[in-house]
């Protein structure tokens, strides 16, 4: 019989891991079935970009949900969601560098320097790298919880940058990026509100926000 801890470790987390790979599986299925519409490159690029934003929002939803529900176990999935955000960001970046630009380095450099939405998107991707690299338990120990946490607060700016990246890309219909933006505002607002109120944190180890 598995105890609570083992259930999470051997059942819940693997299930969430597999679930997080479903978007990739769906994309691969669409590629194989030639079901990417008239502009496959654009489809792949938008699709992977959407999933970066979604995983960033899921990751940022962990803390508010934990606080509200008191279910501290949620914290044990946060790293995985964050790494999936990085995973899909890598695919998104690759779809741009490879499929869209075909490794035309001069064009890419020009884009990153000149096109503000690409500048922002590229910066966010680069900023995600140190977060992914320092996501291991060993790195947390080595850095110390406090410094580690300070570094990982970067994710707030990365998420905001991700929304701005999307907002600056669309031609006139802002609906989609604004929906993402509204959800992010709620998630960040929750933290800000907690900080202002100095609300007592339910007993949780580390007390990370």
């Amino acid at each position, binding site marked *: 019989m598995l105890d609570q801890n083992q259930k999470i470790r051997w059942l819940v987390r693997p299930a969430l891991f597999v679930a997080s790979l479903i978007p990739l599986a769906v994309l691969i299925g669409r590629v194989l079935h030639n079901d990417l519409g008239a502009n*496959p490159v654009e489809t792949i690029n938008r699709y992977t970009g959407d999933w970066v934003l979604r995983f960033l929002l899921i990751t940022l939803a962990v803390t508010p949900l934990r606080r509200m529900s008191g279910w501290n176990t949620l914290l044990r999935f946060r790293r995985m969601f964050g790494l999936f955000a990085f995973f899909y960001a890598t695919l998104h970046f690759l779809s741009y560098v490879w499929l869209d630009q*075909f490794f035309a380095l001069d064009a890419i450099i020009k*884009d990153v320097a000149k*096109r503000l939405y690409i500048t922002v998107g590229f910066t966010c991707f680069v900023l995600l790298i140190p977060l992914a690299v320092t996501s291991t338990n060993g790195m947390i120990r080595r850095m110390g919880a406090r410094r580690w946490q300070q570094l990982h607060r970067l994710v707030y700016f990365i998420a905001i940058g991700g929304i701005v990246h999307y907002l600056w890309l669309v*031609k*006139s*219909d802002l609906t989609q990026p*604004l929906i993402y933006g509204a959800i992010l505002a709620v998630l960040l607002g929750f933290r800000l509100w907690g900080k202002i109120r100095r609300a007592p944190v339910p007993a949780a180890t580390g007390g990370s926000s």
Partner: protein
Amino acid sequence: MFLIRKPTDIKSSEITPKDVYLNRRQFMRGLAAVAATGVSAALWPESSRAGQKLLNVRKGAFATDEKQTPFKDVTSYNNFYEFGTDKRDPAQHAQNFRTFPWSIAIEGEVKKPAVYQMEDLLRHQTLEERIYRLRCVEAWSMVVPWIGFPLSDVIKRVQPTSRAKFVEFVTLHDPAQMPGQRPGLLGAGLDWPYVEGLRMDEAMHPLAILAVGLYGEVLPNQNGAPLRLVVPWKYGFKSIKSIVKIRFVEKQPLTTWGKANAQEYGFYSNVNPAVDHPRWSQASERRLGEDTLFAPKRKTLPFNGYAEQVASLYTGMDLKKYF
């Protein structure tokens, strides 16, 4: 043995398909019209709807021999914000769009202002096929076999006055039929109705056509049925769809995209690889339906490859300023 076959014995392949049957009736009616008028009139169906075959279409003078973008792509990947901002929206939401009856008002600085019924506008009009490149401002392109007639034919017929310096085009405004025009929380971010414009000499240019069909049939609704402009040397958004009004004016019209963002969408909007959109490069493009997933983009040509025909319209103009 079996002189009278039961209906089930007749192979379905032996039955004349309905559209062929309908076309035959149309064809006969067309012949009658030709006989009556003595001119080679186009066989424009009296109550046209998307998908009907267009007969008696001439090969036009301007035709690229590049590979044509598959019908499926041309008709499923559309920027027609009146039916939604997603490329797949128009094909879905325009299915029941009513394109008959349809009238086009000719107004402004003309000697013969009038409101034409679609079939009257087309009555003595020869239809021709024009296989054009279409370059979208979003850096993708297609090759489309349009069916239409020179815009100049209509202009000559209505006789603009000397004060007519520009031609303004207006799309239907009908939020009941066009969900994208309904006031939403945010909407498409554009002012309706959609307005576009051309300078008089641009409008008179033989490359500029009014299209009523593509791939040999009546325009699918999502492609701007029943009547749309096609100006192949300009970005796609200049080629306004579902036109209900053509107005001759003295001043340069204020276009919909120009109103939405004057820095990004100029009045001329000639395809120009040397002038980038402020947010992305226009130097290259992706040819839909042809370039595979792992192919580099192709270089965009000045005036979308029609420089030889149209560059003279802009002699002495600073195309960076008048983008």
